[in-house]
């Protein structure tokens, strides 16, 4: 199966990070434990209640459209998509039909190809529109046939629907598309894209173009895969579908008894997709413009203002970290993946200490390790960007060894070093622990002589070729010297022992 024959399109739903719901003042908050508490007549769809558009939801949607480089409609409106389902209290979803607020656009993703080369793939988008989320049906899953219940806490959450063209050519590409989309949404402050909490949901359409025995190109029936609840799940489900559709094609010799679109679910435990409905219902949603919501027009100035307010997109920032700051692709990716606060933190450290590579090492290793251990967000971290920059500057100026700096860092993380500015605290820690680097060569010379004199056996061992013996001597010198650079000590020791 060459990737040229794989045709994948994604439909992604992203919950917007607004304080309140799209059409009412209820809190927009993930809260599965207390059903139906974040509700009011509007999101309950009670008789007489009316929707009023949340301005922020609209703005975030437009920002998403702009960041995806789509074309923003000068005039947009909302339509009622009508169908019956218990989690949809009005029996229609307020959505956008023929005039979405954004059409076109694209998302570029870097994908490692089979030959190991990185290729930038442009995935075109069909549209981006703003709609309301439905509630959630809760069924008795014990099999006891208990009552089904409905939780409408989620009903009326602003939801962005992003539909891609079928431009995706592999399961990995789909995975990368989702990752890049998630980053963009997170950087723009549009959504936290937490798949566990359902703030990013994805359906995938996939079929293959294969060659039948007669040598003609034939497309397999389109399959829509639902229930995808992780990025890896999307990748795995699509990989499974590629094999399954290929196999099915071979069985039928490319002639299908029924080639209508099929909906399949993804069973993550068993790692298989399964038929959900035999045939896609030819649903007639009877869309019509919602008379309760006025159409909206945007001035060019307004859109230009929103465009000016957009942050640097993560892909561009990642490129800049590599090209301008000299980071490795890997470090740049790790930093960007952590989200905008960490990227900001890193950039602040890098700017202040003028050593981006060292800053990247510290952030990706020391800082992230501490954050992981503490399950802490960067904004709550005890060592702020100023502190880390000061510490790194001391290493660069050789006033502290990296080892001593780590020790100081560990104390700072615990809040040690007393009162005052970070610089004052660092000073104090260095003083208290005698960590100031021994820059005076004469002093180091003298110390080495003393250590060799006190460890004749180790010195002799080294001289006769037991290289490992030097470790003990280095250790002794380091202990005595406090803040000495171990590399310098090693070099000086060897020079002396071999002289």
């Amino acid at each position: 199966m060459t990737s040229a024959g794989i045709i994948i399109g994604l439909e992604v739903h992203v919950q917007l990070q607004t304080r309140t719901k799209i059409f009412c003042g209820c809190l927009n908050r993930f809260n599965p434990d207390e059903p139906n508490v974040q509700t009011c007549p509007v999101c309950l769809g009670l008789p007489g209640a009316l929707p009023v558009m949340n301005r922020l939801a609209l703005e975030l949607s437009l920002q998403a459209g702009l960041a995806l480089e789509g074309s923003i409609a000068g005039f947009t409106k909302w339509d009622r998509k009508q169908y019956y389902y218990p989690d949809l209290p009005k029996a229609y979803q307020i959505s956008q039909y023929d005039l979405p607020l954004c059409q076109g656009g694209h998302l570029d993703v870097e994908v490692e190809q089979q030959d190991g080369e990185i290729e930038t793939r442009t995935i075109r988008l069909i549209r981006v529109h703003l709609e309301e989320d439905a509630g959630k049906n809760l069924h008795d899953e014990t099999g006891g046939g208990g009552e089904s219940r409905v939780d409408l806490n989620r009903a009326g959450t602003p939801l962005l629907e992003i539909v891609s063209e079928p431009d995706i050519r592999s399961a990995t590409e789909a995975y990368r598309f989702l990752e890049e989309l998630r980053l963009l949404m997170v950087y723009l402050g549009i959504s936290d894209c937490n798949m566990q909490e359902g703030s990013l949901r994805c359906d995938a359409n996939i079929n293959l173009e294969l060659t039948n025995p007669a040598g003609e190109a034939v497309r397999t029936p389109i399959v829509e895969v639902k229930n995808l609840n992780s990025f890896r799940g999307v990748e795995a489900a699509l990989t499974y579908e590629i094999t399954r559709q290929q196999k099915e094609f071979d069985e039928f010799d490319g002639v299908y008894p029924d080639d209508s679109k099929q909906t399949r679910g993804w069973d993550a435990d068993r790692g298989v997709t399964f038929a959900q409905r035999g045939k896609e219902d030819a649903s007639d949603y009877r869309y019509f413009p919602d008379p309760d919501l006025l159409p909206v027009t945007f001035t060019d100035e307004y859109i230009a203002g929103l465009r000016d307010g957009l942050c640097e997109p993560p892909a561009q920032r990642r490129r800049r970290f590599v090209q301008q700051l000299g980071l490795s692709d890997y470090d740049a990716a790790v930093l960007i993946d952590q989200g905008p606060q960490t990227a900001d933190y890193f950039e602040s450290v890098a700017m202040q200490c003028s050593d981006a590579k060292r800053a990247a090492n510290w952030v990706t290793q020391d800082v992230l390790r501490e954050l992981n251990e503490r399950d802490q967000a960067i904004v709550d971290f005890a060592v702020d960007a100023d502190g880390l920059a000061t510490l790194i500057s001391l290493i660069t100026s050789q006033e502290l060894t990296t080892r001593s700096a780590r020790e100081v860092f560990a104390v700072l993380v615990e809040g040690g070093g007393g009162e005052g500015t970070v610089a004052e605290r660092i000073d104090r820690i260095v003083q208290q622990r005698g960590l100031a680097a021994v820059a005076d060569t004469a002093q180091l010379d003298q110390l080495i002589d003393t250590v060799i004199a006190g460890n004749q056996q180790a010195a002799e061992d080294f001289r006769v070729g037991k290289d490992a013996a030097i470790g003990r001597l280095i250790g002794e010198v380091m202990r005595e010297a406090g803040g000495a650079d171990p590399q310098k000590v090693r070099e000086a020791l060897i020079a002396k022992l071999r002289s």
Partner: protein
Amino acid sequence: MTACRETAAVLLEQLAGGQATSLELTESCLAEIAAHDESIGAFLHVAADAALVSAESIDRRRAAGEPLGRLAGLPVALKDVLVTSDQPTTCASRMLEGWNPPYDAHTVERLRQADAVLIGKTNMDEFAMGSTTENSAVGPTRTPWRLDCVAGGSSGGSAAAVAAGFAPLAVGSDTGGSIRQPASCCGVVGLKPTYGRVSRYGLVAYASSLDQVGPFARDVASAALLLEVLAGHDSRDGTCVELPVPGYSERLDEPLEGLRIGICPEHFARGLDGEVRETIERALDVYRGLGAVIREIELKHAKFAVACYYLVAPSEASSNLARYDGIHYGRRVDDYDGLVQMYSDSRGAAFGSEVKRRIMLGTYALSAGYYDAYYLKAQKVRRLIAEDYSRAFASVDVIASPVAPTPAVPLGQLTGDPLEMYLADIYTISANLAGIPGISIPAGFSSDGRPIGLQLLGNAFAEEQLLRAAAMHERETQWHQAIPDLDRDAPS
């Protein structure tokens, strides 16, 4: 009991001057309801206890010299299409039987703030669909003038309540004439404001782009007063405009100099009852006598109004009423096999036939392949109708016409013939399609004692002008002083 036969404006003066108390007034209204509503059928729910408590409390506050609202102590009846947090709201449908809304409509809040005494919920055609109040699941409302005839609809209960002296003021809703036409049938004043003038928040939707809440009163001044309380911006209704509310009642006594009244010749053509025609012509003579100029105007697309309305309104209704699915509130059948049957059986059992008819019409009109030919085309015609009115109002101040082709019809006359019933909306529905205000005022009686109203339509947000024009006719004719005799024997 004569207290509640006075106009609201007069009663407010009496309350303020200490000649009457709210408790006396409310008790007198409740007594009238108890004595006569069984034969009229205006109320679905009478909130007697709550009304008395509220009246007493307002009297106490008045005695203590506390500041009071604009309608302090005055009983007001509400069409059962406005949700109330302390009274059931059914829309005269079995679907919402026993439903107690957890909130108040915006207009209900306004009335409470104005210290009105909310006396009860009035009968209507189920979900406001109908022109006779015979589509109520509970039973029809009769005009207090002739108990063998309908009160009109869909706000028949509110119109009859005011006519019968059950309440000096009532609130209704008008989607295609549902305030103006029952006002005409019951011989009271009814006004449909400009679309967007009054918040629809808490008005149970029939056809969202046409629905508007408005006042019923015994005279123009009282209607103006109630409109002042109801109108104004509400951030919970995106279609409600942010325009200041003029003091409608302030300059009612000042006649409009050089008033230009438009008439449309088609309005007086085929199908119009002779007595109605004579009544309207007499009303025009009254205006002529007051120095008004009567001009013929052209409303080119008026002939499409009924067709247009009966596509737009049912389409929106089919969507608005989809929420009554038996899941979250309202009627659910006891036995069903699966979700789909639960939906269809619950809706099948709880909706009346006219509601079902309109849901089916609308569902059909919005279906794939029909949308462009029906709903979209109707919306285009609607714009043409609105443009006709804009053009007309460039040369006239108000447009005068009948309210309905006939006075109140006998019970049962139209129920078997939906098309005939739809055609009876011909004079009123254009105003809803165009979004403009209209008022119906008493203009006389048929030879057999049924009231006949005069309709005046005004330009968008020109309610003040409309009310002043109506007041000119009222001062001259005094038709509003006529009162039905409820103690006579009901004709069989």
